[in-house]
């Protein structure tokens, strides 16, 4: 009896501690973003002035816009290239060098970012020496670097989605008179579309989040948001960074909330479909 009671109390305590461990830092960050004082650790009253300060800080605004641009471009390119790689890996069963291609396209998933960043940097320098392109490092090199590592994630997602797909769907389309290219665009792509969307979102997130690789391959005048934040923090945390972090948390929370709502809706629709399918036939 006692041990059961003990366990009942033990579990909620664990839960509370775990949640506290995860969310107290975030919560304190949010609270201090409304702190009036310039000192991050001393509370002196409620204020939203750091948000105003943030929007007047051209350096941060520029970095955020640059990060967004790079993330959108690299996510789009990674989806195209990753889909092609995933398609080849899922559909073409046997060809020379298949294992090599599979291994190489998955390597960026496990490669330490430091190595990826360093090797890309050396590659860009060598390439510039030989061909004169890329002329210096900046937004182009960061985008290319992000494409190279995020397309591996897209390839994995697309490949597993294609592997789950009933191969007779494509055969059925061909049987009904669709040529192979038409089959790909009319059947295969729409069916793997959810994988493309989640691949795009993942590539976008990876790009926005990346600090290490961008630090290696970026050049003057092309600092991404994580690079700017990191360099500012090294000089001492200023309250406007707290404000920026709060805004990012807000966006992420909103995204998670929307995803949860969409998931709920999907579940409700599925329930309705199941009822429809089980209705007795007349």
């Amino acid at each position, binding site marked *: 009896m006692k041990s059961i009671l003990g366990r009942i109390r033990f579990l909620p305590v664990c839960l509370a501690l775990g949640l506290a461990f995860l969310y107290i830092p975030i919560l304190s960050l949010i609270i201090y973003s409304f702190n009036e004082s310039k000192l991050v650790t001393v509370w002196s009253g409620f204020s939203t002035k750091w948000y105003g300060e943030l929007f007047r800080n051209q350096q941060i605004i520029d970095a955020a816009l640059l990060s967004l641009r790079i993330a959108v471009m690299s996510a789009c390119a990674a989806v195209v290239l990753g889909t092609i790689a995933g398609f080849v890996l899922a559909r073409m069963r046997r060809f020379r060098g298949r294992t090599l291609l599979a291994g190489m396209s998955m390597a960026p998933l496990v490669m330490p970012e430091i190595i990826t960043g360093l090797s890309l940097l050396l590659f860009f320098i060598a390439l510039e020496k030989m061909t004169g392109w890329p002329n210096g490092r900046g937004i182009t090199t960061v985008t290319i670097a992000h494409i190279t590592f995020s397309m591996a994630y897209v390839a994995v997602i697309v490949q597993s989605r294609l592997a789950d797909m*009933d191969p*007779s769907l494509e055969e*059925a389309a*061909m049987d009904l*008179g*669709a*040529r192979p290219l038409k089959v790909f665009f009319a059947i295969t792509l729409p069916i793997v579309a959810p994988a493309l969307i989640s691949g795009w979102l993942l590539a976008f997130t990876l790009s926005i989040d990346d600090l290490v690789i961008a630090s290696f391959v970026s050049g003057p005048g092309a600092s991404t948001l994580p690079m700017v934040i990191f360099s500012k923090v090294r000089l001492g945390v200023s309250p406007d960074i707290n404000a920026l972090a709060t805004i990012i948390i807000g966006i992420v929370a909103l995204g998670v909330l929307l995803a949860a709502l969409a998931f709920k809706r999907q579940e409700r629709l599925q329930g309705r*479909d199941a009822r429809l399918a089980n209705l007795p*036939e007349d």
Partner: protein
Amino acid sequence: MADSTTGRPPAASNEPGQAREPWNDPEAVPYIQLENLSKRFGNFTAVDNISLDIYKSELFCLLGGSGCGKSTLLRMLAGFEAASEGRILLDGVDMADIPPYERPVNMMFQSYALFPHMTVQGNIAFGLKQEGMPRPEIDRRVSDMLELVKLGDYAKRKPHQLSGGQRQRVALARALVKRPKLLLLDEPLGALDKKLRENTQFELMTLQEELDITFVVVTHDQEEAMTLSSRIGVMDQGRIVQVGSPNEIYEHPSSRLVANFIGSVNLFEGNVVEDEADHVRIQSAEAGCMLYIDHGVNQIVEGSRVSVAVRPEKIKISRDSPEQEDNVTRGVIEEVAYMGSLSIYRIRLSSGVMVQATQPNLDRDTRQFTWEDEVYLSWNPYSALVLTT
């Protein structure tokens, strides 16, 4: 086809038997011809030198266990697999270089392969759109088809909003709407439950007669093959071992394999002691009696070992000794299975061999025989069949 120059009476082709059995008409032109067709995957031969003629408006079943090559053969007809050797002629045209999307052949897949992102209507219209058919014509053909498969109210539904039976009908409608010369069906009823399957079988047969399209069905279900088909091709290890009408296959199987595969059968081994033009006598220790069969087996040397096949429903069970000398044996009932319309008995003969016999339950509440009963088993001379292979 018959005309005055051949000397055949013009009425010949109008005889009901002739018209419905083109394979017995030497002048009928086959619609689909398989000539020495083989398919190898590496060292494995999936289809082994098959030659087969299928006639227009037939419902031909390829029947066999898993891995017998029936699905490969179907995929070769659809164009998904290229022949290693031999060729396929459809309506006189060699199909070798014609890709699946240009063949006048459509297929209904085992998984139905309905496009999940399209409505029922979209699924059925897909094939017609590929032909570049004008929109109003497509709409008309699709709604005709929906009417035909009784899914008029479901046009706007997505496949996952349909029941199994409805999905099956959509798949059928989608394959039929292009009016193919040949429709291939891969285990068309495999995913349906038993009750639904029986209804659908008859629907499928009616539809086939109405539309007059040649069907080739692949199935492992012998009952399905028996009900549906005009002819059955029994396949084993990449070969066709026997082709014939359901009745021929059941009553005159050409080998032990076919006899065993279609329905159940009791096989007795024995030695031929007398082989005349009109009868054979076979001494069988397994059966425990002399077997007398009223057809001769001319190519057999006396004394050679053969099998005698007797179907369970052709065996009579009786308590008293029947008045015949041959084809009578004794045993003890070991198992009884009451199936409603009939009962299945398993009887152990004195030789130790188990024999299966079925008796129709003609009256209510007639449990004539039960466990441990000693009974006589007997059958007519024309009910058994000698199998040499």
